[in-house]
């Protein structure tokens, strides 16, 4: 019940705002949007039909009403290039992108949490400095460049990984093989943030009284660190990982393009280059909805992890 109220009061208005921005975006196109989409050699009849399809001949507030209505009922228009439902195309491309993001999250958690915990426990040691340096370099390296370097060295020169695509449909092994480099690249941009935050939260938590209590009980050090300290440090780390998930979607666009991997990211890219605005709109709307949804889930997860605010 509380969840529903929080969803209605927080996530829904933001979603409405995001949709409004999308509505405005299309109207921001300088000159005639229909002309911009169809190109200079479009016939007058084609232009007129597209204008009518998009409702461009109506007053702005009517356009907005129609837009909202169509959005709610799932009628998001057709791709100008393929003439098929823009929303359906996005939904078809989505699993590949979500798999990429999920794999990146696994990499982030698998590397950042241990690295952050170890550098906090061994603070000011060589391991700590090494982790800090690595993290700093990763934070300063653009994802698309890192991706290109990985491609060049590991795929072209060493031939360890495939060069493009997402792998054979139905062949799990091939798909995983194709997933490794993109997931590493996507994760790389966020490793720094999460590692730094894990380290600083751990440092703070390790100084807390209850950690001393656990030691006074005779609890062994690894258990003290993982159960008592990390469990509490996770509260803030989970929040950041959750917010990171949303940004991963943005990173996925670049990573998918670098590795020529099919997905919503490459779809947005193609659509922009082809001025297929309804398609751009549909894909961006899905990304925004996912983004808002993961932020909302993060909120819920934080509540679940923290007994003090559990509802």
């Amino acid at each position, binding site marked *: 019940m509380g969840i529903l109220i929080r969803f209605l009061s927080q996530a829904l208005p933001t979603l409405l705002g995001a949709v409004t921005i999308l509505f405005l975006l299309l109207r921001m196109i300088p000159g005639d949007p229909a002309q911009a989409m169809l190109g200079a050699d479009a016939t007058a009849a084609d232009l007129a039909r597209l204008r009518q399809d998009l409702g461009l001949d109506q007053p702005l507030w009517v356009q907005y009403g129609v837009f909202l209505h169509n959005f709610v009922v799932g009628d998001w228009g057709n791709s100008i290039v393929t003439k098929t439902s823009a929303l359906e195309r996005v939904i078809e491309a989505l699993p590949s992108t979500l798999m990429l993001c999920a794999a990146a999250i696994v990499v982030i958690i698998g590397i950042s949490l241990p690295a952050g915990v170890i550098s906090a426990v061994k603070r000011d040691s060589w391991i700590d400095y090494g982790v800090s340096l690595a993290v700093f370099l990763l934070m300063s390296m653009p994802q698309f460049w890192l991706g290109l370097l990985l491609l060049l060295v590991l795929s072209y020169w060493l031939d360890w990984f495939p060069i493009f695509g997402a792998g054979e449909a139905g062949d799990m092994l091939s798909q995983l093989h194709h997933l490794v480099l993109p997931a590493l690249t996507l994760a790389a941009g966020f490793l720094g943030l999460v590692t730094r935050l894990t380290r600083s939260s751990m440092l703070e938590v390790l100084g807390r*009284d*209850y950690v001393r*209590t*656990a030691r*006074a*009980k005779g609890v062994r050090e690894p258990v003290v660190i993982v159960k008592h300290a990390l*469990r509490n440090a996770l509260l803030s780390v989970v929040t950041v990982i959750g917010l990171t998930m949303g940004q991963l979607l943005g990173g996925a666009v670049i990573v998918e393009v670098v590795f020529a991997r099919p997905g919503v990211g490459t779809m947005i890219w193609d659509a922009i280059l082809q001025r297929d605005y309804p398609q751009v709109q549909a894909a961006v709307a899905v990304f925004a909805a996912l983004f808002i949804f993961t932020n909302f889930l993060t909120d819920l997860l934080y509540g679940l*992890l923290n*007994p003090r605010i559990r509802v």
Partner: protein
Amino acid sequence: MTLLSVNNLATEFNTQAGPRRAIDGVSFSVERGEVLGIVGESGSGKSVTALSIMGLIDPQVGRISGGSITFDGRDLVGLKLAELQALRGKRISMVFQEPLSALNPCFTIGDQIGEVFVAHGDGAGAATRARVLELLKLVHIPDPEGILRRYPHEISGGMRQRAMIAMALAYTPDLLIADEPTTALDVTIQAQVLNLIDRLRQELKLAVILITHDIGIVAQYTDRVAVMYGGRIVETGPAETLLSAPRHPYTIGLLASVPRLGARRPGERLQEIPGTVPSITEILPGCRFASRCAHRMSRCDEQAPALVERAPGQAAACWWTEAA
């Protein structure tokens, strides 16, 4: 045989100016079934003494730099971590000052008490649960079944401290160190908790080190007292004689600053000791109390006084006392 004997203990911490001793030359002993009170202002080294005994000085910031802590015939200084862990919570336990922050907010009371048994290899089964319930009853927690499933923030301060005590008693330790166990509690709850510790001491034959800044508590609940100031013990003796005939100016000052029921005439003001405790970074060759002392002599600034027996079992470290 003496259960715990601390000899010439020194613990230092890293400061901007280099390592500095927070406690220096601390010696005392505790027998089974006895309550030793350690009393002093904050910063006097009481808690550092307790944490040193537990081996809980964070190696990143400090270390025991000298002396010995003999517990049941074994020196705890230099013991391997695994050996210390086997003792902690089982033979030596500690109750901390602020139960809300000393309990982990993410786990239930039952989990946290049961964890003592898990840590010492007894597993988390039904037997452990039964023992946890037993402990909660021992410390007079009403509705132990309900408390078991509660999180620390869901119960009152008094209940939390009882739960902490239950945790400390899991294995009926030989030595219980209570570091200001009632400072964070209401006055009425204070008496309940202290009476509980006192009763358990008698029933279970515990040796207790009761650390406090409240000399009123010392009078009521301890057998012997060590008064600490600036990282040293300045006076020690049986509670009764020390409180009725204090020899060290600091002890005298502490007693004068406490309101005593009935003993206070209307209009009489409580006396405070002027000044503050010197910081551990100050290197003082003489008595660390000298700057605040009404009886300061030139010798006090030059040479640190040693503990010298003044009455049966009672010793003070003071040049003025010695001259008197």
